[in-house]
């Protein structure tokens, strides 16, 4: 999959920037620390939008295309922010055979976004994930730290509604 690039405006704070700059400062002597800096940046911002990759590129003195190339090569990097509530659908084998794809389809419909995307108001995001080890509850989704198991597509609107308030 070509990663989706978020259209949500960048809302980085001066505190986040100061944190990232500190990481860059201690890493910029060695360009091979680029991955490390990117991981830290994702920890700070939750994702790696243009503005963040530009800070990394300029700070590490690496062309921005090199940063972007790495960010699109590894699955661990996200170009889309996490919402206040992150819906994560398990696509492990057990969940998959029990109909996880239908849960994703329903979530896409209800939330109005695709996988790896965030709603414009920053409230909800949607992603798929590998097996989370709750196969007995298949199919499973998590919303932040809450786990919902043995779901059917018709359960989805109710769950979303709980967080819409």
């Amino acid at each position, binding site marked *: *999959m*070509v*990663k989706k*690039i978020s259209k949500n405006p960048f809302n980085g704070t001066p505190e986040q920037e100061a944190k990232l700059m500190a990481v860059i400062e201690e890493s910029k002597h060695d360009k091979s620390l680029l991955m490390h800096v990117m991981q830290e940046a994702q920890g700070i911002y939750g994702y790696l939008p*243009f503005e963040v*990759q*530009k800070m990394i590129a*300029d700070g590490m003195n690496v*062309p*921005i*295309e*090199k*940063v*972007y*190339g790495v960010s*699109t*090569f590894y699955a661990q990097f996200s170009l889309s922010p996490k919402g206040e509530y992150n819906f994560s659908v398990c696509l492990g084998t057990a969940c998959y055979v029990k109909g996880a794809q239908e849960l994703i389809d329903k979530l896409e419909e209800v939330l109005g976004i695709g996988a790896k995307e965030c709603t414009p108001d920053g409230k909800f995001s949607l992603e798929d994930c590998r097996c989370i080890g709750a196969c007995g509850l298949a199919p499973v989704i998590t919303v932040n730290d809450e786990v919902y198991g043995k779901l059917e597509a018709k359960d989805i609107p109710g769950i979303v509604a709980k967080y819409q308030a």
Partner: protein
Amino acid sequence: MEMVNIKINGMPFSVPGGVTILEAARYAGIEIPTLCYLKEINEIGACRFCMVEVAGPRGNRLVSSCVFPVNEGMEIFTNTQKVHDSRRTTLELLLSAHDRKCLSCVRSGSCELQKLCLEYGVENESRYDGEKPQWEIDATATHMVRDNNKCILCRRCVAACDNQAISVIGANARGFDTHIGSAFEMGLNSFSCVECGQCIVNCPTGALYEKDDTKAVFDAINDPDKFVIVNTAPSIRVTLGECFGYKVGTNVTGKMAAALHRLGFNKVFDTDFSADLTIMEEGTELLHRIKEGGALPLITSCSPGWVNYCEHYFPEQIENLSSCKSPQQMFGAVMKTWYAQKMNIDPASIVVVAVMPCTAKKGENKRDDQAASGFADVDYSITTRELASMIKTAGINFDLLPDEQFDNPLGEGTGAGVIFGATGGVMEAALRYAAEALTGKELDSVDFTEVRGTEGIKEATYTVGGLELKVAAVSGLKNAQTIMEKVKAGTCEYQFIEVMACPGGCVNGGGQPIQPASVRNFVDLKGIRGQALYEADKNLPLRKSQDNPAIKMVYDEFFGEPGSHKAHEILHTSYVKKSLYND
């Protein structure tokens, strides 16, 4: 170097240890075909096309010869059925994701993929048809187009861009979705591409090509109300022949002039004239800056790829750039002012076409402050390849053309102008002028050989007229970066630096005829083409810019003297500080 004994296809050879199988095979007179391999620039073993069989304890195995070193006793087979099958399958797999519109492809006939498909007997282009990626064409740049539907992901363009210290393109995403492009899928024009075109001349397929201006030029020629003047850059005369099957380094000046006449241009002039003019202005500027205390080192501004680089990457140093327009722009400026006046032609009806070894020239003529007459100095800048395509479209049999001359009065150039096309040439031409300007005496020898040759950085110190002049000639932007770091740090001792964006100078420019990797890897293209320019210089009666009668004429009739107020208005320009991101 220690030699090792190997066998290739059963024949014994002794080759230097440590070389790759690919290089060793060259010693044995065997050419192993490659796709992704570019010597010293892209040695990544990615495309798996150069596979050969190597004998081992568990039977023969396929290895990629471009990265596999030879060792003592190695037995190599380059021509087995297994090798052929492997190569053909690789091609068929590449074709499965390839936009196979070969008939209308700009590289039809010069495409390395197409050639190999024929050679390896690919009979069914659709053998592995499946899902095909559909990529949007990136035409945002001023000078070129990227069509990833023709891309085979060899990464030669990426390597060429990295080798220029630019890296505005790279491989994005992974697996089936891998594609070459710029950050965040933005157009090339969003970033600090310097338009050098080295990616284009290194592309094996039709994925990269310059924006075509030939149709517009034909339209101008066919418009009876237009007076169309063409001029050809110094290096074109020694490279154009390659498009018509001539050996690398063949000088085809006469046939080129004949072809241009037959294409229907109203006047066929030589950019050598304005190269000489550049020397008069730039040499004067150098002496002025040294005597009056201007920004030093003075750095040449003939190469628009270099000017773009300086503006984007070293914006604080733009005051070091010579304020002289490039020869292309000076030529157009003189045409639409002095020549228009002299010939009583309305500059509005003059169309200036420049034939250049360069894709950055397509951006240069659209810059601000490049319209001395009120009209753009240069209307169209076309590459050597585009000129060749026009000659072919017009049905001109290049082979049968007689040798003709450029038209007067601006068809006259000197050896100093001719060598502009090779790295160090502008420097040498400037020295030929400066030495005489400083001493007032005629030079005994006009050869400044220290600044010749294709090394990336050449340094020399000359004492002329009591003045010690430290100079450097640099080509390739990675080398320019090295020098500019010194200039920025204030640790640079030179007073005068020539920089050419492309490695080896214009003879190896991004607009030059495309040679396949099999030639690029093993033939010193820039060296041979450059040598042809020095030969031409040696054989010319006039070898110093100041001796060009046309130069004397334009100063007598129009500009007064080099560096005059009028010369500054028409022949000089300005630069802009830029960043790595455009918008």
